[in-house]
């Protein structure tokens, strides 16, 4: 098998905008799945509603494209009813942390054996660029026309605090690191949460002076602070660069997990 064999070719081309990073995240995921020799017919992709959640529709496995925010609850049912299935959830920042926030923390608390890949574009892309709980303070969106006046969620902190076994953050720029991280997550019993910062030039960049894709990607690249470097800065009591966010494996532990295949 190759990565190509995981695609549902009669559904392509996909609906993602030019310059969107979701496609490369799907690629990384399938690369990771394929490298582990997972079987198509033992793997289920589940998603909610939003751009990210269209991903399972392009993958050839059994897949469940569900209601807004509820992907983790549906996935919990799939995994609980059949531990032998590998279950991977695609979600977005709005789907996961706003309408699905309660399911998110409970899935992490249960540490149920799912891999959750969150494409965080900091906006509601599909519905036209409304603010989400991950829209940075000050950022413009159609529902924060004067700038976001609420703080954003740190999804990785949330997942760690709630009990997930594996938590990492990368960006759509860090393709190789991301693929490796997803691979670790897929292998980890319990809940693996992988947050991927991703550009949405259409609905985020356009409103926030990041008109072209390159500007968005370089901004992500330049502000991504490696976990190791971050730890070093903290240890040396040096200042953390403003606007930066930590990338890397943030949590890796082996708490008791639910739904693990025997």
């Amino acid at each position, binding site marked *: 098998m190759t990565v190509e064999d995981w695609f*549902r070719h*009669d*559904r392509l081309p996909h609906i993602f905008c030019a310059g969107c990073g979701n496609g490369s995240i799907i690629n990384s995921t399938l690369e990771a799945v394929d490298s582990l020799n997972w079987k*198509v*017919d*033992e793997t*289920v992709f*589940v998603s909610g509603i939003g751009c990210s959640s269209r991903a*399972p*529709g392009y993958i*050839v*496995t*059994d*897949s*469940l*494209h*569900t*209601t807004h925010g*509820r992907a983790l*609850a*549906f*996935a*919990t*049912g*799939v*995994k*609980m*009813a*059949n531990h*032998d*299935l590998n279950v991977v959830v695609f979600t977005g920042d709005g789907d996961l942390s706003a309408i699905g926030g*309660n*399911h998110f923390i*409970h899935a992490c608390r249960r540490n149920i054996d799912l891999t959750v890949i969150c494409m965080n574009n900091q906006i509601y892309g599909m519905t036209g660029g409304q603010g989400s709980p991950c829209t940075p303070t000050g950022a413009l969106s159609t529902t924060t026309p004067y700038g976001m006046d609420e703080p954003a969620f740190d999804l990785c902190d949330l997942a760690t605090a709630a009990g997930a076994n594996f938590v990492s953050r990368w960006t759509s720029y860090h393709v190789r690191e991301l693929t490796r991280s997803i691979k670790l997550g897929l292998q980890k019993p319990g809940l693996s949460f992988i947050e991927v910062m991703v550009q949405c030039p259409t609905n985020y960049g356009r409103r926030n002076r990041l008109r072209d894709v390159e500007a968005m990607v370089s901004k992500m690249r330049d502000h991504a602070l490696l976990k190791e470097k971050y730890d070093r800065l903290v240890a040396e009591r040096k200042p953390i660069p403003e606007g930066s966010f930590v990338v890397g494996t943030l949590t890796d532990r082996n708490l008791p997990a639910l739904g693990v295949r025997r």
Partner: protein
Amino acid sequence: MTRVDFMQGNIASAEGALAAGCRFFAGYPITPSSEVAEHMARRLPKVGGRFIQMEDEIASMAAVIGGAWTGVRSMTATSGPGFSLMMENIGYAAFTETPCVVVNIQRGGPSTGQPTLAAQGDMLQCRFGSHGDYSTIALAPSSVQEMFDLTVKSFNLADRFRAPAFLMADEIIGHLRERVEFPDTVECTPPRPIREGMLPFEPEEDLVPGFTPFGHGHRVHVTGLTHNEKGYPASTDPDLHERLVMRLIEKVERARHEIADYDIENPDAEVVFISYGVPTRSVRQALLDAPEGLYGHLNLRIVWPFPENLLKKFPNARVFLVPELNMGQMAREIVRHCDQPVISLPRLGGELHTPQYLLDRAEEYR
């Protein structure tokens, strides 16, 4: 060998589910249905099944649908407030043709209402509660024995029509203890598998597609978007959407006479009671207390799809009296199907119509 027990309705429903092969339950505690979840929590692990208490009823319904798609008979149980929360995902189950069972032990509403008292206030919600058009199957038990029998039947109907089926019980029957007989085996009719060469959402002659559970190589994409027979999103095609929605309604509605489950007493009577669920018990007592043959009675065990042809089984009927623990929800449906006056006899607050009350009302229409 039949096993006999003196048992509560909610427990009998859980036992019915287990007998029907239900091996996954996801739920959230809510009065007066919690005994169903508690019993499943105790029993499922002992029969190789799994129980999970979810964070709310939205998640419970979602998990049940997820479980059902692995080919495992899956169920939840709830009451009014939880039922309301389940509505979006119930629509998803209807639209994605997911066979699953929802037990609703109805209590007084709206809102938190009367958690410990009986009602039948969710009869229209179970038919129309989610957005958009669809059809559902609803059963109404009026005894502890029927809590068992009709739970089994709910699974079979859900599988046959690939649709959510609702056991619309109430607090009285849910908490009542009575003698109940458990047969050694019950009839279980699993969903029809997909035939070679058919698409996952391509209907057979009865308008129901063969089932394609996950993990069996069907590689099916299931979406709540309007989808074509392959299961792929096609949400902007007006004709396809219309055809799909009409088929989902028609596959259930066209079977309404065939699957009808009812009792008829005194078909020659001129004054006829129509009831379902616990008021049936009051009507039966009223008929015993009245002069023989004076009043007719139609008891419905399947309420949706509504078997309107049964009204014709009372050729002399001048009036239909419909006692319900709501403001006349099914009476509205009956009105649509007959020329005779339909008198709604609502009872709210948790008390049941007494037989004497029913006789007094019937006397007015003699």
